[in-house]
Protein backbone atom coordinates (compact mmCIF):
# COMPACT_ATOMS: atom_id res chain seq x y z
CA UNK A 1 0.00 0.00 0.00
CA UNK A 2 1.26 3.45 -0.78
CA UNK A 3 2.34 5.57 2.14
CA UNK A 4 -0.26 8.29 1.48
CA UNK A 5 -3.07 5.84 1.30
CA UNK A 6 -2.00 4.10 4.49
CA UNK A 7 -1.79 7.44 6.29
CA UNK A 8 -5.25 8.36 5.11
CA UNK A 9 -6.75 5.06 6.22
CA UNK A 10 -4.95 5.25 9.56
CA UNK A 11 -6.33 8.73 10.11
CA UNK A 12 -9.80 7.51 9.24
CA UNK A 13 -9.49 4.57 11.65
CA UNK A 14 -8.56 7.08 14.37
CA UNK A 15 -11.58 9.21 13.54
CA UNK A 16 -13.81 6.16 13.64
CA UNK A 17 -12.41 5.23 17.05
CA UNK A 18 -13.02 8.70 18.40
CA UNK A 19 -16.55 8.61 16.99
CA UNK A 20 -17.14 5.28 18.74
CA UNK A 21 -15.97 6.60 22.10
CA UNK A 22 -17.98 9.80 21.81
CA UNK A 23 -21.07 7.99 20.62
CA UNK A 24 -21.02 5.50 23.46
CA UNK A 25 -20.35 8.17 26.04
CA UNK A 26 -23.34 10.11 24.79
CA UNK A 27 -25.63 7.07 24.77
CA UNK A 28 -24.38 5.80 28.13
CA UNK A 29 -24.44 2.21 26.92
CA UNK A 30 -23.27 0.03 24.04
CA UNK A 31 -20.36 -2.15 23.02
CA UNK A 32 -16.95 -0.49 22.72
CA UNK A 33 -14.63 -3.53 22.71
CA UNK A 34 -15.92 -5.32 19.63
CA UNK A 35 -16.44 -2.01 17.81
CA UNK A 36 -12.87 -0.81 18.35
CA UNK A 37 -11.41 -4.13 17.23
CA UNK A 38 -13.00 -3.55 13.81
CA UNK A 39 -12.04 0.10 13.25
CA UNK A 40 -9.10 -0.62 10.94
CA UNK A 41 -11.09 -3.12 8.91
CA UNK A 42 -14.00 -0.70 8.51
CA UNK A 43 -11.66 2.12 7.61
CA UNK A 44 -10.29 -0.08 4.85
CA UNK A 45 -13.66 -1.36 3.62
CA UNK A 46 -15.26 2.06 3.33
CA UNK A 47 -12.35 4.33 2.47
CA UNK A 48 -9.91 2.33 0.34
CA UNK A 49 -12.29 2.28 -2.63
CA UNK A 50 -12.46 -1.52 -2.56
CA UNK A 51 -16.23 -1.60 -2.23
CA UNK A 52 -18.68 -0.77 -5.01
CA UNK A 53 -20.90 1.57 -2.98
CA UNK A 54 -22.38 5.04 -3.28
CA UNK A 55 -23.46 6.88 -0.15
CA UNK A 56 -25.71 9.07 -2.31
CA UNK A 57 -27.44 6.01 -3.66
CA UNK A 58 -27.31 3.57 -0.75
CA UNK A 59 -29.79 1.13 -2.33
CA UNK A 60 -28.25 0.77 -5.76
CA UNK A 61 -28.86 -2.74 -6.91
CA UNK A 62 -25.35 -3.94 -7.70
CA UNK A 63 -23.70 -2.50 -4.61
CA UNK A 64 -21.40 -4.59 -2.48
CA UNK A 65 -23.04 -5.43 0.82
CA UNK A 66 -21.92 -5.67 4.40
CA UNK A 67 -23.69 -7.80 6.97
CA UNK A 68 -22.54 -7.18 10.52
CA UNK A 69 -23.32 -10.59 11.88
CA UNK A 70 -21.88 -9.51 15.26
CA UNK A 71 -24.50 -6.77 15.30
CA UNK A 72 -23.60 -5.39 18.73
CA UNK A 73 -20.52 -3.79 17.14
CA UNK A 74 -22.72 -1.41 15.11
CA UNK A 75 -21.08 1.75 16.51
CA UNK A 76 -18.09 1.07 14.24
CA UNK A 77 -20.45 0.73 11.31
CA UNK A 78 -22.42 3.86 12.13
CA UNK A 79 -19.19 5.82 12.50
CA UNK A 80 -17.89 4.60 9.13
CA UNK A 81 -21.22 5.31 7.42
CA UNK A 82 -21.38 8.81 8.88
CA UNK A 83 -17.77 9.56 7.91
CA UNK A 84 -18.53 8.27 4.43
CA UNK A 85 -21.51 10.62 4.11
CA UNK A 86 -24.45 8.20 4.29
CA UNK A 87 -25.98 10.54 6.85
CA UNK A 88 -25.01 13.57 8.86
CA UNK A 89 -22.52 13.01 11.65
CA UNK A 90 -24.87 14.74 14.10
CA UNK A 91 -26.94 11.56 14.13
CA UNK A 92 -24.16 9.76 15.98
CA UNK A 93 -25.21 11.58 19.13
CA UNK A 94 -28.62 9.91 18.95
CA UNK A 95 -27.29 6.35 19.18
CA UNK A 96 -29.65 4.12 21.17
CA UNK A 97 -32.06 6.94 21.93
CA UNK A 98 -35.79 6.74 21.37
CA UNK A 99 -36.68 7.64 17.79
CA UNK A 100 -33.09 7.42 16.55
CA UNK A 101 -32.16 6.01 13.18
CA UNK A 102 -29.24 4.42 15.00
CA UNK A 103 -30.72 1.54 16.95
CA UNK A 104 -28.85 -0.48 19.58
CA UNK A 105 -28.36 -3.15 16.93
CA UNK A 106 -28.37 -2.68 13.12
CA UNK A 107 -31.76 -2.01 11.53
CA UNK A 108 -31.80 -2.03 7.72
CA UNK A 109 -35.05 -0.10 7.59
CA UNK A 110 -33.83 2.77 9.72
CA UNK A 111 -30.19 3.36 8.76
CA UNK A 112 -29.03 4.20 5.23
CA UNK A 113 -26.18 1.89 4.27
CA UNK A 114 -27.17 -0.90 6.65
CA UNK A 115 -27.92 -3.86 4.42
CA UNK A 116 -29.26 -6.33 6.95
CA UNK A 117 -30.86 -6.30 10.36
CA UNK A 118 -28.88 -8.27 12.94
CA UNK A 119 -28.39 -8.56 16.68
CA UNK A 120 -29.22 -12.15 17.46
CA UNK A 121 -25.80 -13.71 16.99
CA UNK A 122 -25.40 -16.45 14.41
CA UNK A 123 -27.93 -15.25 11.88
CA UNK A 124 -26.03 -12.69 9.82
CA UNK A 125 -23.75 -15.13 8.04
CA UNK A 126 -26.82 -17.06 6.88
CA UNK A 127 -28.40 -13.84 5.63
CA UNK A 128 -25.19 -13.14 3.74
CA UNK A 129 -25.42 -16.61 2.18
CA UNK A 130 -28.90 -15.73 0.92
CA UNK A 131 -27.64 -12.43 -0.47
CA UNK A 132 -24.75 -14.15 -2.22
CA UNK A 133 -27.14 -16.67 -3.77
CA UNK A 134 -29.40 -13.84 -4.95
CA UNK A 135 -26.47 -11.90 -6.38
CA UNK A 136 -25.39 -14.95 -8.36
CA UNK A 137 -28.88 -15.62 -9.71
CA UNK A 138 -29.07 -12.12 -11.13
CA UNK A 139 -25.37 -12.06 -12.10
CA UNK A 140 -25.02 -8.75 -10.29
CA UNK A 141 -21.30 -9.21 -9.75
CA UNK A 142 -21.52 -7.79 -6.26
CA UNK A 143 -19.68 -9.12 -3.24
CA UNK A 144 -21.07 -9.77 0.22
CA UNK A 145 -18.91 -9.14 3.27
CA UNK A 146 -20.05 -10.76 6.51
CA UNK A 147 -18.37 -9.69 9.75
CA UNK A 148 -18.45 -12.51 12.27
CA UNK A 149 -17.34 -12.62 15.92
CA UNK A 150 -15.17 -15.35 17.37
CA UNK A 151 -17.57 -15.85 20.29
CA UNK A 152 -20.37 -15.86 17.76
CA UNK A 153 -18.86 -18.97 16.25
CA UNK A 154 -20.22 -20.88 19.28
CA UNK A 155 -23.56 -20.69 17.48
CA UNK A 156 -24.36 -23.77 15.44
CA UNK A 157 -26.00 -21.63 12.80
CA UNK A 158 -22.60 -20.19 11.83
CA UNK A 159 -21.53 -23.66 10.79
CA UNK A 160 -24.80 -24.36 9.02
CA UNK A 161 -24.14 -21.21 7.03
CA UNK A 162 -20.50 -22.16 6.46
CA UNK A 163 -21.55 -25.54 5.08
CA UNK A 164 -24.11 -24.03 2.73
CA UNK A 165 -21.74 -21.32 1.45
CA UNK A 166 -19.28 -24.03 0.45
CA UNK A 167 -22.01 -26.22 -1.01
CA UNK A 168 -23.21 -23.39 -3.25
CA UNK A 169 -19.63 -22.35 -4.13
CA UNK A 170 -20.22 -18.78 -3.00
CA UNK A 171 -17.03 -17.09 -4.14
CA UNK A 172 -18.85 -13.75 -3.87
CA UNK A 173 -19.05 -14.18 -0.09
CA UNK A 174 -16.22 -13.08 2.17
CA UNK A 175 -16.44 -13.63 5.91
CA UNK A 176 -14.18 -11.50 8.07
CA UNK A 177 -13.74 -13.14 11.45
CA UNK A 178 -12.95 -10.63 14.18
CA UNK A 179 -10.82 -12.94 16.26
CA UNK A 180 -10.30 -10.81 19.34
CA UNK A 181 -10.20 -13.88 21.62
CA UNK A 182 -12.85 -12.51 23.96
CA UNK A 183 -16.56 -12.92 24.38
CA UNK A 184 -18.69 -11.61 27.27
CA UNK A 185 -17.81 -13.96 30.09
CA UNK A 186 -14.09 -14.16 29.33
CA UNK A 187 -11.58 -15.60 26.87
CA UNK A 188 -13.15 -17.70 24.15
CA UNK A 189 -10.70 -20.47 24.98
CA UNK A 190 -12.14 -20.61 28.52
CA UNK A 191 -15.81 -20.04 27.77
CA UNK A 192 -16.08 -22.30 24.74
CA UNK A 193 -12.93 -23.42 23.08
CA UNK A 194 -13.45 -22.98 19.36
CA UNK A 195 -9.93 -23.96 18.38
CA UNK A 196 -8.63 -24.97 15.96
CA UNK A 197 -10.53 -22.12 14.35
CA UNK A 198 -8.51 -21.96 11.14
CA UNK A 199 -8.85 -25.67 10.54
CA UNK A 200 -12.56 -25.56 11.23
CA UNK A 201 -13.15 -23.10 8.37
CA UNK A 202 -10.75 -25.01 6.14
CA UNK A 203 -12.49 -28.29 6.87
CA UNK A 204 -15.81 -26.67 5.96
CA UNK A 205 -14.28 -26.07 2.52
CA UNK A 206 -13.46 -22.38 2.85
CA UNK A 207 -10.28 -20.69 1.74
CA UNK A 208 -8.75 -19.20 4.88
CA UNK A 209 -6.42 -16.20 5.05
CA UNK A 210 -5.04 -15.29 8.46
CA UNK A 211 -4.01 -11.70 9.06
CA UNK A 212 -3.29 -9.12 11.70
CA UNK A 213 -6.60 -7.26 11.65
CA UNK A 214 -4.96 -3.98 12.61
CA UNK A 215 -2.41 -3.99 9.81
CA UNK A 216 -3.82 -2.15 6.80
CA UNK A 217 -1.40 -3.79 4.36
CA UNK A 218 -2.49 -7.22 5.49
CA UNK A 219 -6.15 -6.22 5.40
CA UNK A 220 -5.68 -5.00 1.85
CA UNK A 221 -3.77 -7.95 0.53
CA UNK A 222 -6.18 -10.43 2.12
CA UNK A 223 -9.24 -8.76 0.65
CA UNK A 224 -7.64 -8.40 -2.76
CA UNK A 225 -6.70 -12.04 -2.69
CA UNK A 226 -10.14 -13.06 -1.45
CA UNK A 227 -11.83 -11.25 -4.31
CA UNK A 228 -9.93 -13.35 -6.81
CA UNK A 229 -10.59 -16.76 -5.34
CA UNK A 230 -13.03 -18.74 -7.45
CA UNK A 231 -15.56 -21.42 -6.61
CA UNK A 232 -15.42 -21.18 -2.85
CA UNK A 233 -16.06 -18.74 -0.06
CA UNK A 234 -13.20 -17.07 1.80
CA UNK A 235 -12.79 -16.51 5.51
CA UNK A 236 -10.33 -13.82 6.50
CA UNK A 237 -9.37 -14.64 10.05
CA UNK A 238 -8.38 -11.26 11.44
CA UNK A 239 -6.45 -11.51 14.67
CA UNK A 240 -7.41 -8.42 16.60
CA UNK A 241 -7.31 -6.84 20.03
CA UNK A 242 -10.65 -6.19 21.63
CA UNK A 243 -10.85 -2.52 22.58
CA UNK A 244 -7.91 -1.72 20.26
CA UNK A 245 -6.76 1.88 20.45
CA UNK A 246 -7.95 2.64 23.97
CA UNK A 247 -5.22 1.51 26.34
CA UNK A 248 -7.41 0.65 29.30
CA UNK A 249 -9.91 -1.25 27.16
CA UNK A 250 -7.45 -3.35 25.19
CA UNK A 251 -7.85 -7.05 25.90
CA UNK A 252 -10.25 -6.38 28.77
CA UNK A 253 -13.48 -8.35 28.63
CA UNK A 254 -15.02 -5.87 31.07
CA UNK A 255 -15.20 -3.41 28.15
CA UNK A 256 -17.38 -5.62 26.04
CA UNK A 257 -20.61 -3.86 26.78
CA UNK A 258 -20.28 -0.70 28.83
CA UNK A 259 -19.82 2.95 28.04
CA UNK A 260 -16.88 5.00 29.33
CA UNK A 261 -17.49 7.67 31.97
CA UNK A 262 -16.69 11.36 31.29
CA UNK A 263 -13.15 11.06 32.70
CA UNK A 264 -12.55 7.80 30.91
CA UNK A 265 -13.74 9.45 27.74
CA UNK A 266 -10.99 12.11 27.83
CA UNK A 267 -8.33 9.48 28.25
CA UNK A 268 -9.89 7.22 25.65
CA UNK A 269 -9.99 9.96 23.03
CA UNK A 270 -6.40 10.92 23.76
CA UNK A 271 -5.44 7.27 23.24
CA UNK A 272 -7.36 7.03 19.98
CA UNK A 273 -5.63 10.13 18.57
CA UNK A 274 -2.14 8.74 19.26
CA UNK A 275 -0.24 7.05 16.51
CA UNK A 276 -1.17 3.36 16.40
Amino acid at each position, binding site marked *: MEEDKRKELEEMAKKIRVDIVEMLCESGSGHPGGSLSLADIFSYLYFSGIMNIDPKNPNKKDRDRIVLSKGHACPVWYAALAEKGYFDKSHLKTLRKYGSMLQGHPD*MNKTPGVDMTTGSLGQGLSCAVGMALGAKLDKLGCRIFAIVGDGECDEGQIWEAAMSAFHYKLDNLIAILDRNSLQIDGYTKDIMNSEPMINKWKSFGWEVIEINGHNLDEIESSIEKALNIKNKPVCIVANTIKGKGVSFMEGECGWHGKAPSEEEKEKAIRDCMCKA
Partner: protein
Amino acid sequence: MIPENIKKILSNEDKKVATRKAYGERLAELGEKNKNIVALDCDLSKSTMTALFARKFPDRFFNFGIAESNMISAAAGLSTMGKIPFASTFAVFASKRACDQVSISVAYPHLNVKICATHSGVSIGEDGATHQAIIDAAIMRAMPGMVVLSPCDGTETKKVIDRIAEYKGPCYVRLCRVASPVIFNESYNFEIGKGIKIMEGGSATIISAGFTTHIAMQAARKLEEDGIEVDLINMVSIKPIDSKLIIESAKKTGLVITVEDHSVIGGLGGAVCEVLSCNMPTKVVRLGVQDKFGSSGSPSELVSAYGFDAASIIKTVKENIC
Protein backbone atom coordinates in the same frame (compact mmCIF):
# COMPACT_ATOMS: atom_id res chain seq x y z
CA MET B 1 -78.36 -23.13 5.14
CA ILE B 2 -75.97 -22.39 2.34
CA PRO B 3 -76.61 -18.95 0.80
CA GLU B 4 -77.11 -18.85 -2.98
CA ASN B 5 -73.98 -16.81 -3.65
CA ILE B 6 -71.93 -19.37 -1.71
CA LYS B 7 -73.46 -22.32 -3.56
CA LYS B 8 -71.93 -20.87 -6.74
CA ILE B 9 -68.41 -21.07 -5.37
CA LEU B 10 -68.66 -24.47 -3.72
CA SER B 11 -67.19 -27.44 -5.50
CA ASN B 12 -69.59 -30.19 -6.46
CA GLU B 13 -66.84 -32.61 -7.30
CA ASP B 14 -66.16 -35.46 -4.94
CA LYS B 15 -62.42 -34.87 -4.77
CA LYS B 16 -59.77 -34.91 -2.05
CA VAL B 17 -56.49 -33.01 -2.17
CA ALA B 18 -53.80 -32.34 0.44
CA THR B 19 -53.14 -28.64 0.77
CA ARG B 20 -49.38 -29.27 0.63
CA LYS B 21 -49.89 -30.83 -2.81
CA ALA B 22 -51.92 -27.87 -4.04
CA TYR B 23 -49.12 -25.64 -2.75
CA GLY B 24 -46.38 -27.52 -4.58
CA GLU B 25 -48.35 -27.52 -7.83
CA ARG B 26 -49.20 -23.83 -7.68
CA LEU B 27 -45.67 -22.82 -6.75
CA ALA B 28 -44.33 -24.70 -9.77
CA GLU B 29 -46.88 -22.91 -11.98
CA LEU B 30 -46.14 -19.49 -10.54
CA GLY B 31 -42.44 -20.06 -11.07
CA GLU B 32 -43.04 -19.74 -14.79
CA LYS B 33 -44.76 -16.39 -14.59
CA ASN B 34 -42.58 -14.85 -11.92
CA LYS B 35 -38.87 -15.38 -12.36
CA ASN B 36 -38.12 -13.79 -9.00
CA ILE B 37 -39.72 -16.66 -7.14
CA VAL B 38 -37.19 -19.00 -5.55
CA ALA B 39 -37.90 -22.03 -3.37
CA LEU B 40 -35.97 -23.19 -0.33
CA ASP B 41 -36.29 -26.41 1.58
CA CYS B 42 -34.63 -28.45 4.32
CA ASP B 43 -34.39 -32.00 3.03
CA LEU B 44 -38.17 -32.39 2.93
CA SER B 45 -38.93 -31.26 -0.61
CA LYS B 46 -40.71 -34.49 -1.46
CA SER B 47 -43.01 -34.02 1.52
CA THR B 48 -43.51 -30.27 1.31
CA MET B 49 -43.91 -30.70 -2.47
CA THR B 50 -41.38 -28.01 -3.34
CA ALA B 51 -39.80 -30.85 -5.33
CA LEU B 52 -42.27 -29.98 -8.10
CA PHE B 53 -40.72 -26.51 -8.32
CA ALA B 54 -37.19 -27.92 -7.97
CA ARG B 55 -37.70 -30.23 -10.94
CA LYS B 56 -38.80 -27.36 -13.17
CA PHE B 57 -36.43 -24.69 -11.90
CA PRO B 58 -33.35 -26.38 -10.47
CA ASP B 59 -31.36 -23.11 -10.53
CA ARG B 60 -33.94 -21.35 -8.41
CA PHE B 61 -34.30 -24.10 -5.83
CA PHE B 62 -32.01 -24.23 -2.81
CA ASN B 63 -31.87 -27.21 -0.51
CA PHE B 64 -30.28 -26.27 2.80
CA GLY B 65 -30.13 -29.75 4.21
CA ILE B 66 -31.43 -30.27 7.71
CA ALA B 67 -30.70 -26.72 8.85
CA GLU B 68 -33.92 -24.77 9.27
CA SER B 69 -32.39 -21.76 11.03
CA ASN B 70 -29.93 -21.25 8.21
CA MET B 71 -32.66 -21.61 5.60
CA ILE B 72 -34.88 -18.95 7.18
CA SER B 73 -32.07 -16.39 7.55
CA ALA B 74 -30.85 -17.15 4.02
CA ALA B 75 -34.41 -16.62 2.76
CA ALA B 76 -34.26 -13.20 4.41
CA GLY B 77 -30.99 -12.48 2.61
CA LEU B 78 -32.45 -13.58 -0.74
CA SER B 79 -35.44 -11.31 -0.25
CA THR B 80 -33.17 -8.29 0.23
CA MET B 81 -31.86 -9.02 -3.27
CA GLY B 82 -35.34 -8.73 -4.76
CA LYS B 83 -36.14 -12.43 -4.78
CA ILE B 84 -39.43 -13.83 -3.49
CA PRO B 85 -38.36 -16.79 -1.39
CA PHE B 86 -40.85 -19.53 -0.56
CA ALA B 87 -39.26 -21.42 2.33
CA SER B 88 -40.73 -24.78 3.26
CA THR B 89 -40.25 -27.40 5.92
CA PHE B 90 -42.52 -29.04 8.47
CA ALA B 91 -44.48 -26.54 10.54
CA VAL B 92 -42.93 -27.75 13.81
CA PHE B 93 -39.47 -26.82 12.57
CA ALA B 94 -40.38 -23.58 10.80
CA SER B 95 -42.07 -22.25 13.91
CA LYS B 96 -40.02 -23.63 16.77
CA ARG B 97 -36.52 -24.56 15.54
CA ALA B 98 -36.25 -21.40 13.48
CA CYS B 99 -38.36 -19.19 15.74
CA ASP B 100 -35.67 -16.59 16.44
CA GLN B 101 -34.64 -16.51 12.79
CA VAL B 102 -38.24 -15.90 11.72
CA SER B 103 -38.49 -13.17 14.33
CA ILE B 104 -35.17 -11.33 13.80
CA SER B 105 -34.12 -12.11 10.22
CA VAL B 106 -37.60 -11.98 8.68
CA ALA B 107 -40.35 -10.36 10.76
CA TYR B 108 -38.42 -7.51 12.39
CA PRO B 109 -37.07 -6.15 9.06
CA HIS B 110 -40.48 -7.03 7.53
CA LEU B 111 -38.89 -8.89 4.64
CA ASN B 112 -40.75 -10.45 1.75
CA VAL B 113 -40.34 -14.07 2.82
CA LYS B 114 -43.11 -16.67 2.40
CA ILE B 115 -42.88 -19.45 4.95
CA CYS B 116 -45.07 -22.25 3.64
CA ALA B 117 -44.99 -24.88 6.33
CA THR B 118 -46.57 -28.26 5.82
CA HIS B 119 -47.59 -31.08 8.18
CA SER B 120 -49.37 -28.83 10.64
CA GLY B 121 -51.64 -30.17 13.35
CA VAL B 122 -52.22 -33.57 14.94
CA SER B 123 -53.89 -34.66 11.69
CA ILE B 124 -50.48 -35.57 10.30
CA GLY B 125 -51.07 -38.77 12.26
CA GLU B 126 -48.63 -41.56 12.98
CA ASP B 127 -45.38 -39.55 13.31
CA GLY B 128 -46.71 -38.33 16.65
CA ALA B 129 -46.06 -35.37 18.92
CA THR B 130 -42.56 -34.45 17.71
CA HIS B 131 -43.91 -33.78 14.23
CA GLN B 132 -47.31 -32.30 15.07
CA ALA B 133 -47.28 -28.50 14.94
CA ILE B 134 -49.91 -27.35 17.43
CA ILE B 135 -48.45 -24.01 18.49
CA ASP B 136 -47.16 -22.75 15.15
CA ALA B 137 -50.07 -20.40 14.47
CA ALA B 138 -49.74 -19.03 18.02
CA ILE B 139 -46.03 -18.37 17.53
CA MET B 140 -46.39 -16.84 14.09
CA ARG B 141 -49.39 -14.76 15.05
CA ALA B 142 -47.39 -13.18 17.85
CA MET B 143 -44.70 -11.99 15.42
CA PRO B 144 -45.30 -8.30 14.63
CA GLY B 145 -46.36 -7.78 11.02
CA MET B 146 -46.59 -11.46 10.11
CA VAL B 147 -49.55 -12.52 7.98
CA VAL B 148 -50.83 -15.95 9.06
CA LEU B 149 -52.99 -17.95 6.66
CA SER B 150 -54.57 -21.36 7.11
CA PRO B 151 -56.28 -22.52 3.91
CA CYS B 152 -58.94 -25.20 4.22
CA ASP B 153 -58.64 -27.00 0.89
CA GLY B 154 -56.70 -27.25 -2.35
CA THR B 155 -58.55 -24.45 -4.11
CA GLU B 156 -58.14 -22.00 -1.27
CA THR B 157 -54.46 -22.96 -0.99
CA LYS B 158 -53.83 -22.08 -4.62
CA LYS B 159 -55.57 -18.73 -4.21
CA VAL B 160 -53.56 -18.06 -1.07
CA ILE B 161 -50.28 -18.82 -2.84
CA ASP B 162 -51.20 -16.54 -5.76
CA ARG B 163 -52.06 -13.73 -3.39
CA ILE B 164 -49.01 -13.92 -1.14
CA ALA B 165 -46.71 -13.97 -4.15
CA GLU B 166 -48.06 -10.50 -4.96
CA TYR B 167 -48.25 -9.22 -1.39
CA LYS B 168 -45.06 -7.58 -0.07
CA GLY B 169 -44.16 -8.69 3.43
CA PRO B 170 -43.66 -11.76 5.58
CA CYS B 171 -46.32 -14.49 5.43
CA TYR B 172 -46.79 -17.82 7.15
CA VAL B 173 -49.00 -20.42 5.49
CA ARG B 174 -50.15 -23.43 7.48
CA LEU B 175 -50.53 -26.48 5.27
CA CYS B 176 -51.63 -30.06 5.88
CA ARG B 177 -50.31 -33.50 5.12
CA VAL B 178 -53.45 -35.53 4.52
CA ALA B 179 -55.88 -35.14 1.68
CA SER B 180 -59.14 -33.44 2.56
CA PRO B 181 -62.27 -32.71 0.51
CA VAL B 182 -62.11 -29.89 -2.00
CA ILE B 183 -64.62 -27.35 -0.71
CA PHE B 184 -64.39 -24.47 -3.16
CA ASN B 185 -64.40 -24.30 -6.94
CA GLU B 186 -62.20 -22.06 -9.07
CA SER B 187 -64.51 -19.04 -8.83
CA TYR B 188 -63.78 -18.70 -5.11
CA ASN B 189 -61.84 -15.54 -4.40
CA PHE B 190 -59.45 -15.00 -1.49
CA GLU B 191 -58.30 -11.79 0.11
CA ILE B 192 -55.84 -11.34 2.98
CA GLY B 193 -57.81 -10.22 6.05
CA LYS B 194 -61.10 -11.71 4.92
CA GLY B 195 -62.98 -14.79 6.08
CA ILE B 196 -65.97 -16.30 4.39
CA LYS B 197 -69.34 -17.36 5.76
CA ILE B 198 -70.16 -20.68 4.16
CA MET B 199 -73.43 -21.36 5.99
CA GLU B 200 -76.07 -19.12 7.58
CA GLY B 201 -78.06 -19.70 10.73
CA GLY B 202 -79.02 -18.02 13.96
CA SER B 203 -78.35 -20.57 16.70
CA ALA B 204 -74.59 -20.42 16.98
CA THR B 205 -71.44 -19.39 15.12
CA ILE B 206 -68.86 -21.99 14.22
CA ILE B 207 -65.51 -20.56 13.17
CA SER B 208 -62.93 -22.87 11.66
CA ALA B 209 -59.70 -22.60 9.70
CA GLY B 210 -57.58 -25.05 7.76
CA PHE B 211 -57.99 -28.80 8.03
CA THR B 212 -61.04 -28.63 10.30
CA THR B 213 -63.30 -26.67 7.96
CA HIS B 214 -64.57 -29.73 6.11
CA ILE B 215 -65.29 -31.34 9.49
CA ALA B 216 -67.13 -28.26 10.71
CA MET B 217 -69.19 -28.33 7.50
CA GLN B 218 -70.21 -31.91 8.15
CA ALA B 219 -71.22 -30.96 11.66
CA ALA B 220 -73.19 -27.91 10.50
CA ARG B 221 -75.08 -29.99 7.92
CA LYS B 222 -75.93 -32.58 10.55
CA LEU B 223 -77.10 -29.88 12.93
CA GLU B 224 -79.31 -28.50 10.18
CA GLU B 225 -80.95 -31.90 9.82
CA ASP B 226 -81.70 -31.71 13.55
CA GLY B 227 -83.26 -28.28 13.06
CA ILE B 228 -80.31 -26.24 14.36
CA GLU B 229 -79.00 -23.71 11.88
CA VAL B 230 -75.61 -22.12 12.43
CA ASP B 231 -73.30 -19.55 10.90
CA LEU B 232 -70.23 -21.39 9.64
CA ILE B 233 -67.24 -19.14 9.04
CA ASN B 234 -64.05 -20.26 7.36
CA MET B 235 -61.37 -17.96 8.78
CA VAL B 236 -58.45 -18.60 6.44
CA SER B 237 -56.88 -15.27 7.40
CA ILE B 238 -55.97 -15.86 11.03
CA LYS B 239 -53.93 -12.66 10.94
CA PRO B 240 -55.06 -10.11 10.02
CA ILE B 241 -58.34 -11.60 11.15
CA ASP B 242 -61.75 -10.62 9.77
CA SER B 243 -63.06 -8.93 12.93
CA LYS B 244 -66.13 -7.50 11.23
CA LEU B 245 -67.38 -10.90 10.12
CA ILE B 246 -66.82 -12.38 13.60
CA ILE B 247 -68.48 -9.52 15.48
CA GLU B 248 -71.54 -9.42 13.21
CA SER B 249 -72.11 -13.11 13.53
CA ALA B 250 -71.55 -13.19 17.30
CA LYS B 251 -73.99 -10.32 17.71
CA LYS B 252 -76.62 -12.35 15.89
CA THR B 253 -76.05 -15.78 17.49
CA GLY B 254 -74.62 -15.00 20.93
CA LEU B 255 -72.53 -18.18 20.93
CA VAL B 256 -69.24 -18.90 19.18
CA ILE B 257 -67.48 -22.25 18.79
CA THR B 258 -63.99 -22.24 17.31
CA VAL B 259 -62.55 -25.34 15.70
CA GLU B 260 -58.89 -25.84 14.77
CA ASP B 261 -56.26 -28.53 14.45
CA HIS B 262 -54.01 -26.53 16.80
CA SER B 263 -53.74 -25.73 20.48
CA VAL B 264 -56.69 -23.76 21.81
CA ILE B 265 -54.09 -21.39 23.24
CA GLY B 266 -53.02 -18.61 20.92
CA GLY B 267 -54.30 -19.85 17.58
CA LEU B 268 -57.65 -19.24 15.89
CA GLY B 269 -59.58 -19.70 19.14
CA GLY B 270 -57.37 -17.24 20.93
CA ALA B 271 -57.61 -14.75 18.09
CA VAL B 272 -61.42 -14.92 18.02
CA CYS B 273 -61.54 -14.37 21.81
CA GLU B 274 -59.30 -11.33 21.43
CA VAL B 275 -61.65 -9.84 18.86
CA LEU B 276 -64.81 -10.53 20.83
CA SER B 277 -63.62 -9.67 24.34
CA CYS B 278 -63.27 -5.99 23.53
CA ASN B 279 -65.86 -5.60 20.78
CA MET B 280 -68.73 -7.93 21.53
CA PRO B 281 -68.25 -10.03 24.70
CA THR B 282 -69.69 -13.40 23.76
CA LYS B 283 -69.36 -16.93 25.08
CA VAL B 284 -66.67 -18.73 23.08
CA VAL B 285 -66.01 -22.46 23.33
CA ARG B 286 -62.68 -23.41 21.78
CA LEU B 287 -62.31 -26.87 20.25
CA GLY B 288 -58.84 -28.04 19.34
CA VAL B 289 -55.88 -29.43 21.24
CA GLN B 290 -56.41 -28.65 24.95
CA ASP B 291 -52.99 -27.76 26.44
CA LYS B 292 -51.57 -31.18 25.56
CA PHE B 293 -48.99 -32.60 23.22
CA GLY B 294 -50.09 -34.69 20.27
CA SER B 295 -49.56 -38.42 19.87
CA SER B 296 -49.37 -41.18 17.29
CA GLY B 297 -52.52 -42.52 15.70
CA SER B 298 -54.42 -42.29 12.46
CA PRO B 299 -55.55 -38.79 11.48
CA SER B 300 -59.23 -39.56 12.04
CA GLU B 301 -58.57 -41.27 15.37
CA LEU B 302 -56.62 -38.25 16.55
CA VAL B 303 -59.21 -35.74 15.39
CA SER B 304 -61.77 -37.59 17.55
CA ALA B 305 -59.42 -38.21 20.46
CA TYR B 306 -58.50 -34.51 20.63
CA GLY B 307 -62.17 -33.55 20.44
CA PHE B 308 -62.68 -31.71 17.19
CA ASP B 309 -64.44 -34.32 15.07
CA ALA B 310 -67.97 -33.65 13.78
CA ALA B 311 -69.56 -35.45 16.74
CA SER B 312 -67.68 -33.27 19.25
CA ILE B 313 -68.66 -30.11 17.38
CA ILE B 314 -72.34 -31.14 17.30
CA LYS B 315 -72.29 -32.04 20.99
CA THR B 316 -70.66 -28.73 21.89
CA VAL B 317 -73.23 -26.72 19.94
CA LYS B 318 -76.16 -28.60 21.45
CA GLU B 319 -74.84 -28.30 24.99
CA ASN B 320 -74.27 -24.57 24.70
CA ILE B 321 -77.29 -23.20 22.87
CA CYS B 322 -79.99 -21.95 25.16
